């Protein structure tokens, strides 16, 4: 009796799973219609993690229930390398034009899809309990250990290098610098007190109360910091990717970005 019961139950399971399969195939047959459920992968600079995960992606998915957004965050240089090696990415948001332009030059970005979306600032941070008396960019030489993004791959690091080069102290700074593989790592090194000072975006600094901002980069020492967004050519969901890009440009999204310390680039 018991055996028969089990047999019956497993038959039921089998039938349900077959039904599940067939309904899947019908839905993929009716592709291209608006009701199609699609998933897009967004690769974004590490500094965008908080505002994307906490606000923008939930907001977008609520407005567009048929599109699911997966996000991955790393330094823009890392993401560039991954996209070049064929990573499955639909939308790329970089923390600097360099990486976007490099991909565009290789023909990996959909033509005319690049939008200069946001602006950010770089700031000097120290641990909240710091006693080193660091209060300006040139004071950073008082620090024993400095955290900055790796200028070879992290835009925040490139801007930091630019600022210190213009202040003529880059050589001294780089000798003490631990080069983070993305800007979040730099932030955490300073928050944990491992480094005495660091350079990150204003937006990152405001996300962590274990660090305090002591200075903005001196006027003229750093070029304008632009965050561009672009659609990756290899995308299989260009429509959904476009919808997402349009959403990022909307006033609603820009308001969210502004609440995290970014400025709209108009």
């Amino acid at each position, binding site marked *: 009796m018991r055996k028969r019961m089990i047999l019956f139950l497993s038959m039921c399971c089998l039938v349900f799973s077959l039904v599940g399969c067939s309904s899947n195939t019908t839905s993929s047959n009716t592709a291209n219609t608006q009701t199609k459920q699609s998933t897009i992968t967004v690769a974004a600079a590490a500094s965008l993690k908080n505002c994307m995960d906490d606000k923008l992606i939930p907001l977008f998915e609520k407005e567009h229930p048929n599109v699911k957004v997966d996000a991955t965050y790393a330094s823009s240089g890392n993401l560039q390398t991954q996209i070049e090696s064929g990573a499955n990415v639909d939308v790329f948001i970089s923390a600097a034009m360099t990486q976007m332009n*490099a991909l565009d030059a290789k023909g990996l970005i959909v033509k005319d899809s690049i939008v200069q979306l946001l602006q950010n600032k770089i700031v000097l941070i120290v*641990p909240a309990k710091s006693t080193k008396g660091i209060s300006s960019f040139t004071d950073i030489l008082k620090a024993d250990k400095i955290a900055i993004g*790796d200028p070879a*791959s992290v835009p925040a690091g490139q801007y930091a290098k630019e600022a210190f080069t213009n202040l003529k102290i880059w050589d001294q700074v780089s000798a003490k610098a631990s*080069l983070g593989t993305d800007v979040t790592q730099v932030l955490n*090194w300073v928050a944990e*007190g491992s480094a005495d000072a660091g350079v990150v975006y204003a937006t990152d600094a405001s996300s962590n109360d274990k660090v305090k901002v002591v200075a903005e980069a001196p006027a003229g020492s750093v070029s304008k910091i632009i965050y561009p967004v672009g659609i990756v050519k290899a995308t299989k969901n260009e429509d959904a990717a476009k919808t997402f890009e349009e959403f990022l440009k909307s006033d609603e999204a820009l308001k969210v970005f502004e609440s995290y310390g970014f400025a709209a680039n108009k």
Partner: protein
Amino acid sequence: MQMSPIIISMKTASAAVALTFLLGLFAARWIVKIKSEKAKMVLDGILTMPLVLPPTVIGFFLLLIFGVNRPVGKFLLGFLGVRIVFSWTATVIAAVVISFPLMYRSARGAFEQVDQNLIMAARTLRMSEKRIFWRIIMPLALPGVTAGGILAFARGLGEFGATAMIAGNIENRTRTLPLAIYSEVAAGDMQTASYYVIVVLVISFVVVVLTNYFTMKERKYLK
């Protein structure tokens, strides 16, 4: 390609393996001597943890211990003026913790395979336990112990996760080979990265062959 990551990695792995070798030997000897099977299982579990945990978890714990705002780190900085985080010492600490289980387990296995009859015989001849360990157990377990040391060296050389968290990525100081490879790939410089990769490949291959050589010796003895 720069030489500094290679030199730093070799220095770190050498210093780490020296420490790991001694720590692993003592731990293995200690565990083998314990009579209670239950205590043995639990202690062995604890000592093997670093092998199965993600290195980032080890890095997390090391930061909890040595971070400058944490008890031990604060003490070292305040009283001795020693700052562990972001120093070369930190790369060694990370490598020691991560590679320890390999040494410990190999040594333990080698000790347990030593013929008990020989030890008994030595006891009947009134040899002291200390002498038995150094004159009988160690020579017989040497191939296994050496293989463990070599594996530990290789693991220390390849340590990345915990190192990045506690030692940072300071050029000429804490940038080891794995960190250099990660940074170069992130920067899109596959050319330079490939040189470092070749160095790691060559060292790792030599290590594996050496380990095989020593385990083969051990097997010959057992036959």
